[in-house]
């Protein structure tokens, strides 16, 4: 299978590999996939006071396409508001990396990871707001 230059670049020089403090209230963590299926993505966002994603990190267990999809996802969410980040579509990821058809699920997983991280952040905020209102 011949992979695109973009995909190979993200695989060989992955952007934003690492972890953020998951107990931090400004950090949202998305963990999607399953080890038994051969891919697991952890994507984390850190949201600034202006409501924009100021940092993003990922770690991925999976094939080259999964690693590249999550690397690209962290790059794309940075600087976006949560609402903007939520609009990122798996098809855009797949197109940018020219994923072969059998690898489309990797881009779907990346989109899921973004959504899961945003949800985790929002859940945390609600709990915090609730506490503040008490």
């Amino acid at each position, binding site marked *: 299978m011949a*992979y695109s230059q973009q995909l190979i670049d993200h*695989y060989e020089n*992955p952007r934003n*590999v690492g*972890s953020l403090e998951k107990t931090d209230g400004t950090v949202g963590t998305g*963990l*999607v*996939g*399953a*080890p*038994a*299926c*051969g*891919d*697991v*993505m*952890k994507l984390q966002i850190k949201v600034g006071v202006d409501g924009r994603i100021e940092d993003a990190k*990922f*770690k*991925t*267990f*999976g*094939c*080259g396409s*999964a*690693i590249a999809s999550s690397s690209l996802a962290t790059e794309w969410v940075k600087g976006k508001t949560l609402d903007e980040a939520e609009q990122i579509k798996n098809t855009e990821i797949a197109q940018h990396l020219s994923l072969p058809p059998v690898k489309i*699920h990797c881009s779907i*997983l990346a989109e899921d990871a973004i959504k899961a991280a945003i949800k985790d952040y929002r859940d945390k905020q609600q709990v915090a707001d609730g506490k503040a209102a008490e």
Partner: protein
Amino acid sequence: MSVNGSSTNGQQVHEPVQVNGLRQDGQNQPQLPIYLDYQATTPCDPRVVQAMLPYFTEKFGNPHSRNHHFGWEAEEAVEKARRQVASIIGADEKEVIFTSGATESNNLALKGVAHFQKDRKNHVITTVTEHKCVLDSCRHLEMEGFKVTYLPVQQNGLIDLEQLKAAITDKTVIVSIMAVNNEIGVIQPLAEIGKICRERGVYFHTDAAQAVGKIPLDVNAMNIDLMSISGHKIYGPKGIGALYVRRKPRVRLDALIHGGGQERGMRSGTLATPLCVGLGEACAIAEKEMASEAERLTYLRDRMYNQFKERLPEVFLNGDLDQRIPGNLNLSFAYVEGEGLMMGIKDLAVSSGSACTSASLEPSYVLRALGVEEELAHTSLRLGIGRFTTEQDVDYAVEHIIESVNKLRSMSPLWEMAQEGIDIKSIQWAEH
């Protein structure tokens, strides 16, 4: 002492100077990419090609032409090849028929014997780790009404002889158990299986595509009634194989391919003289060099395995180590997905048991049959070494695999969890 450290007192130094996994001496750099997939196929030995060449051009006769020199010349070559094939398995030349490869041999052995006996017996026994061509032939027989028992294997990949004994009934026509597994290289207890089958009066067929030339085989000592052989796994050409069919006591089978009645009616069609010659020569070379080659490959295989074990935590060997051909290593590098790893070592041609590398989305059915958990099956790599693998190749491969595994583990969420002491099984994963 030489500056580049490649020799002292004329002796090979086994540990060249390395920084970041790369040789500093600039010597003995292996040629890239490195082929480490000898169970998938092997290159033709140049000696094999040399032997074949005349039979494409000046000695082009039809080996079945009985009336002139061209035919006799080709026939002579084919019969010599038949003797060479017979010799490596301790058979008589009359018991060897040429086919297009082990796939056809397996089809012919299973369907041929089952069809011939269908009015008397209807039961076939095989194992769950067979090559697809055996499993699919069995499925086909099931559709025709045969019953098939798929024996499980133990954690080391070997069958339990007691389970085999228990599975045989008076309706059992044939037991088909592979000699050496293509993914994990484990060797089944052929002599014991043969003994059981002979005592119970059922035919014993073995798919020896991965075994011929790698381990000593003797159809009589092992009570083997049918044996499949493939050319391209033993440094011979692709598109040729053989089926050993015992004559005493005689095994009878229905042909799959009908026509001119060649190969004693069991396989019609004009024999491909150059390919037969190639298979014969490949067998002759393998027979002569088996012992020394096994010793050399064992050294290289152990060298690889020991490096991985010493330098990486959580590396697991799939399949038995002792009952194994020398040229195979199948390892799971926990927390690193196999296809992701293969992309990181693109100078190395290897295979993975990961689902991503196959057309289906299931990880290797062979590893699953050993009880290897799905997540570990996804992290497996098959390293197959052979006649043309050098020590430099092996050392280069080890360095690159270790480097890649370390890099990918540092970006694996599962590795991170394991380091934090989180049990991966305690998490509710959304299976997708």
